[in-house]
């Protein structure tokens, strides 16, 4: 399959998930994974701003905690934070030269093996609501076509977020994002519960939760809640086959 075919397939896949029983958390994870596959980057992350104006991590291409740490540290400074503030693309082609610009973020990113980064704004109705972070292991930047594709992915993510109607009578962007943020917290809690019950790591726990949701056509957040409420037996959430199928990144 050519890359073009894969791109078309990706957009169709994303559009398909934006119907009926839409699972925004799963969608955002899928988007992050596809970014890594289609664009020349090693990791991708999606951040959203909450009602207080604080950037929150919504999804990452892999659940490696270090990737998430990195993104979250950008709450204070970093390309994602700048991108959100300016509502425009922020790029660093070589992080080794950025220790003055981003004294906390740059050294940490380099330590994790990232050499360059591009942050693309997510905008909804003229408002910047977050950013898509693309981390690369080599210097340089994405070619123009990739940047355009990345902006397209960011735009789709922004539209998708407005689909989540968990708030009755929602009439603003802020309330609609709250549902997604709340689901995200619940999923993190469920990861901890499952990790402890099944004696596995939180990454493996997340893989099992996602696999179960997909297999049974359920929303991730509903699976999380059922597990937490005791309506779902941890033992039903699979076995080593799921863990083995989690790609190592």
């Amino acid at each position, binding site marked *: 399959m050519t890359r073009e075919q894969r791109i078309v397939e990706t957009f169709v896949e994303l559009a398909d998930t934006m119907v009926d029983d839409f699972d925004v958390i799963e969608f955002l994870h899928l988007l992050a994974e596809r970014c890594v596959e289609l664009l020349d980057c090693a990791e991708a992350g999606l951040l959203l701003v909450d009602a207080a104006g604080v950037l929150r991590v919504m999804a990452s291409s892999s659940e490696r905690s270090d990737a998430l740490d990195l993104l979250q540290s950008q709450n204070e400074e970093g390309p994602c934070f700048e991108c959100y503030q300016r509502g425009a693309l922020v790029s660093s082609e070589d992080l080794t030269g950025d220790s003055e610009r981003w004294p906390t973020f740059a050294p940490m990113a380099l330590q994790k093996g990232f050499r360059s980064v591009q942050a693309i704004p997510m905008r909804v109705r003229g408002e910047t609501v977050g950013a898509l972070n693309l981390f690369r292991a080599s210097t340089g930047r994405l070619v123009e076509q990739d940047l355009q594709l990345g902006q397209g992915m960011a735009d789709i993510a922004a539209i998708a977020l407005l689909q989540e109607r968990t708030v009755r009578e929602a009439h603003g962007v802020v309330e609609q994002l*709250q549902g997604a943020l709340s689901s995200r917290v619940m999923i993190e809690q469920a990861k901890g519960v499952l990790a402890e019950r099944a004696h596995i790591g939180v990454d493996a726990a997340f893989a099992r939760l996602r696999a179960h949701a997909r297999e049974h056509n359920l929303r991730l957040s509903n699976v999380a809640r059922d597990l*937490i409420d005791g309506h779902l037996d941890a033992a039903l959430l699979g076995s080593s086959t799921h863990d083995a199928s989690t790609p190592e990144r």
Partner: protein
Amino acid sequence: MPTDRLSVVLREIVEADVDGSASLVDRVCMAAVNLLSLRGAGLSLMVDGELRGTAGVSEPGIAIVQELQLTLGEGPCVDAWTSRAPVLEANLAEPAIVRWPAFAQAGVDAGVLAVFAFPLHLGAIRIGVLVIYRGRSGMLNADEMAYGLVLADMATQVLLALQAGAPADVLHEVLAGEPSHWAEVHQATGMISVQLGVSLDEAFVRLRAHAFAEGLPLRTVAREIVTRRHRFQGPA
């Protein structure tokens, strides 16, 4: 770029009732009133898995309207609790859909023409509801809605910190948003709930209490738990 709502809300809470002896929870309600030009605000807490008890009010007169909902078993407070989503009524006197026949009358009699209820929760942890009452009809605009959500978030943090026995000098940090929205904190909460055989909100309180007792940032303790360098031991 939205204004720094967190700082604005924090300042309102700190400055509300400076000379008085209002509790922190009451001050959250007062801050809501000042910020959003409200008739009043009230906060109800969960006790033993059920919503009851008024934890705070902006003024004593509002307590009656807040508590009435629990007595009647109807109202925006009750609906927000069960639905886990904000419940917004812009026209209590002539609602588009009649949801609370008994409560609406009582509310209007008390001078309330619009009411907005925000559940207080942290993921699957539910602890109560913040209700704000307006003396004129009309929906919250986008900015007011955002402030409502920030106030609800702060109320959640305050209540959980108080339950964890937070010393007074640390509450300021709590309000300033010592981040409890980091993934590890929620993961650790889940793990502790299994380790101790308790509910998530009890687990979170224990996590927070441990951090206060050790003088460590919440996130550091959470990381110790998630990396399994530290476990909470259940009763033998």
